[in-house]
């Protein structure tokens, strides 16, 4: 059955604290941090972007899979912070992996869920026999406008899932998507920063889609929250996924392992996939995982996964688990943050 | 091969020439050299010009023809030679070979660079082309960075200190103070160097030669005809050149320049001398560490002892061996394409006893050492009175 053959996550080293951002704008950092459920966010350095994150995460995924990169038949990079507006990131990732030239590649955009959309595309291509392996990447750098609410939460990171049929470490038993036309968050062509519809992003957007997708998947698979050992939800902040879990009836302990945003901020296309990576770092054979992504605009992809015995074999998990990797960090102040993120006008 | 001598020299002031153009610098240095040699323009049968980066620095190529044109010497053949900072040295060697072969009796060898018409970053980029553009400069490695990598290894392997490196700059500024053509006439202290701010650790601003405008010319003549023009010709008894890998990372060691070592061996054999016979030398101190490497690789001091020798004053004027009496690249200035020729000018002035306050007493035998890039080209010339 189709499933995950390898996975990898990458989070940049620098961190800026929510309190430090609040200091610059004369706001109450404690209150903002508490409201968002985020203490600090990961920041890409001057020479990093969604492409470099994608390569680092993909290299880890391919290494754990132990496959010949030439067997990758499709590569999709989901991102809303592409280094080029026109020119695919996917080709650069493919070249860096040594997967060129016998593959198809494209960049996908669906706000924060383009990475899981890539997973579904790969699943279809693998299941049909069109390709042997497909690589789906979600990768983003923070795009928060200075002094916007997003600035406190927008982090950076990438995750990659290698999809195939053989030697899977987790089978993907089912997937279900829920999609509507809901404009809660967008970035117009040529605009530097995204805009959002404030509190509109919650009920009619995030919660409606995440909950509908989860319920749709439960219905399709005849499962309910108690059948799952872990649940990972898209995590634009530290609070939304907890509330979604509670509404669905998940205990908080099933959420914790995959809730990474409090430590690194919202990593957009990578968020749910980094959360899943963290769960795969510890999940045992036979355990079941629910993953629900969310992309503004809007839609959610829900997945039911079952961990296989393969995961316990040597080398099938990355050397450093997500929760350990993110401890390797350096704090920077706001001015270094805006320098590295090129928000100073002359940069 | 015929013996070749220098019969005249000319130099512009080295420094920031805001009011003087590239071509005016050439004309000034060449005019002085021709007058000094007491030749007529029509006696000069060919011109060889060293220039490293005029394309990047002033947007002008085809320097050979430009020189002949500016000097009113067309239609004599006039050729530009480029070997990064050793452009002057290879131009000098081309001139020597042209006369030694019997092709010409009298030739002019010039060197020129105008470096102040671009920003410091652009100058750093242009000079970066002397290294491996694709694998060094492309990664952000400047020239100070490459020499800093050598300095760091030298400090590790031999215990050389930043203060010892600074001693080279202090000595060269002291010598430059006595050279009217030098860019700097300001004596500095070790403390000044130590406080001057890092450019590429452990090298600081005052470990680095400056950006300089300037030109230099020598007139070469076959030794058998030299005395027809000049009372005290200076014979070039050795002219050698060696190469090494363009990129620093490809070298087996960072604490010696193989091109210098190989060229030195050849030069001493050709001149039938040993390093001990050399009274004074102009060495390529684009950075203080480069002077330390040079005085070791040229055999004046054992490997690893160059820093200490500089600190102990053994390279000062009239000490064990007088190094960079002109002020060197650090004190006199470093218009890259002109440097190799300017070194020959200093050697000539010393041997003709025309060096004024910086005159080496009993100067019998001089050596010039010109390096291109991070050591990928080296030329050495040895001089004595004819």
């Amino acid at each position, binding site marked *: 059955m189709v499933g995950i053959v390898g996975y990898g996550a990458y989070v940049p080293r620098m961190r800026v604290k929510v309190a430090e951002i609040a200091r610059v704008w004369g706001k109450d950092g404690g209150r903002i941090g508490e409201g968002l459920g985020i203490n600090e966010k990961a920041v890409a350095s001057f020479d990093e972007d969604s492409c470099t994150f994608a390569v680092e995460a993909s290299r880890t995924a391919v290494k754990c899979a132990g496959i010949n990169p030439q067997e990758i038949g499709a590569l999709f990079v989901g991102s809303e912070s592409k280094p*080029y507006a026109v020119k695919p990131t996917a080709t650069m990732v493919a070249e860096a992996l040594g997967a060129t030239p016998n593959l198809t590649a494209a960049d996908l955009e669906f706000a924060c869920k383009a990475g899981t959309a890539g997973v579904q595309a790969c699943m279809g291509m693998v299941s049909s026999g069109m390709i042997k392996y497909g690589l789906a990447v979600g990768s983003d750098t923070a795009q928060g406008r200075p002094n916007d609410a997003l600035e406190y939460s927008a982090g950076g990171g990438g995750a990659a899932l290698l999809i195939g049929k053989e030697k899977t470490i987790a089978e993907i038993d089912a997937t279900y998507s829920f999609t509507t036309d809901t404009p809660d968050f967008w970035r117009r062509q040529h605009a530097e920063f995204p805009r959002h519809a404030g509190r509109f992003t919650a009920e009619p957007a995030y919660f409606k889609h995440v909950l509908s997708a989860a319920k749709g998947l439960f219905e399709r698979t005849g499962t309910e929250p108690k059948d799952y050992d872990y649940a990972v939800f898209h995590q634009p902040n530290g609070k939304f996924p907890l509330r979604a879990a509670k509404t669905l009836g998940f205990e908080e302990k099933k959420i914790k392992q995959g809730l990474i945003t409090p430590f690194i901020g919202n990593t957009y296309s990578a968020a749910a996939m980094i959360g899943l990576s963290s769960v795969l770092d510890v999940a045992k054979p036979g355990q079941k995982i629910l993953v629900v992504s969310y992309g503004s605009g809007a839609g959610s992809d829900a997945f039911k996964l079952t961990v296989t015995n393969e995961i316990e074999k040597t080398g099938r998990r990355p050397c450093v688990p997500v929760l350990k990797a993110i401890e390797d960090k350096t704090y920077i102040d706001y001015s270094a943050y805006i320098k590295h993120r090129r928000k100073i006008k002359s940069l | 091969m015929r013996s070749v001598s220098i019969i005249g020299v000319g130099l512009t002031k080295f420094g920031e020439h805001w009011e003087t153009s590239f071509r005016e610098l050439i004309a000034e240095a060449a005019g002085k050299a021709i007058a000094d040699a007491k030749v007529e323009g029509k006696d000069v049968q060919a011109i060889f010009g060293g220039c490293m980066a005029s394309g990047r620095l002033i947007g002008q190529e085809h320097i050979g023809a430009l020189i002949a044109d500016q000097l009113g010497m067309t239609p004599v053949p006039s050729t530009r030679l480029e070997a990064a900072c050793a452009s002057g040295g290879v131009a000098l060697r081309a001139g020597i070979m042209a006369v030694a072969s019997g092709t010409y009796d009298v030739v002019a060898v010039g060197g020129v660079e105008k470096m102040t018409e671009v920003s410091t970053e652009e100058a750093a980029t242009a000079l970066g082309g002397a290294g491996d553009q694709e694998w060094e400069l492309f*990664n*952000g490695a400047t020239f100070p*960075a490459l020499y800093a990598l050598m300095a760091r290894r030298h400090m*590790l392997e031999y215990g050389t200190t930043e203060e010892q490196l600074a001693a080279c700059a202090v000595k060269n500024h002291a010598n430059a103070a006595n050279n009217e053509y030098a860019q700097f006439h300001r004596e500095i202290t070790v403390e000044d160097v130590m406080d001057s701010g*890092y*450019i590429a650790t452990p090298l600081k601003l005052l470990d680095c030669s400056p950006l300089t405008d300037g030109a230099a010319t020598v007139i070469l003549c076959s030794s058998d005809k030299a005395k027809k023009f000049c009372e005290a010709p200076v014979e070039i008894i050795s002219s050698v050149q060696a190469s090494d890998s363009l990129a620093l990372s490809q070298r087996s060691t960072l604490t010696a320049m193989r091109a210098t070592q190989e060229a030195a061996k050849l030069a001493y054999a050709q001149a039938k001398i040993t390093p001990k016979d050399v009274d004074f030398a102009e060495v390529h101190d684009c950075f203080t560490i480069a002077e330390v490497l040079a005085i070791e690789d040229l055999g004046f001091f054992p490997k690893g002892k160059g820093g200490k020798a500089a600190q102990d004053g053994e390279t000062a004027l009239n000490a064990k061996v007088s190094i960079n009496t002109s002020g060197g690249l650090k004190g006199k200035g470093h218009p890259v394409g002109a440097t190799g020729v300017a070194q020959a000018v200093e050697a000539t002035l010393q041997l003709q006893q025309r060096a004024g306050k910086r005159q080496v007493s009993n100067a019998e035998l001089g050596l010039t050492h010109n390096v291109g890039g991070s050591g990928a080209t080296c030329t050495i010339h040895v001089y004595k009175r004819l």
Partner: protein
Amino acid sequence: MKNATPLIWRNSADRYNLLGSHCATCGTDYFPERVVCPKCRRKGKIEPKQMPPEGKIYSFTQVHAAPTGFEHETPYYIAIIELANGVKVLTQLVDSPDEKIKIGATARMCFRRVFEEGDEGIIAYGFKFKVV
């Protein structure tokens, strides 16, 4: 640098993955790649080879005065890394705390932006190293 696209593209596989050369005749590895083996010359047999992604710092410097295109990155580290196979590579060192940057420290290849042709030009990606 103007119009560097062909240059950037031509070397991209080498820069992405430390792809160098190996001489099958004498067994020597080279980076960057070479057409001719300097040891064997005409008798050499050059083939592509990926260099090991780990090595030790052979020498390093912190650059405070940058060339065009790197002005906003200062101060940054440049190092020569001696790879496990003895080949030396010049690279930037990133993500490494000052106190960890020492001669002999182990460093590993990572993937970064290396050079950009201004705001609108091509971005060259490739290897840099970080101390592990």
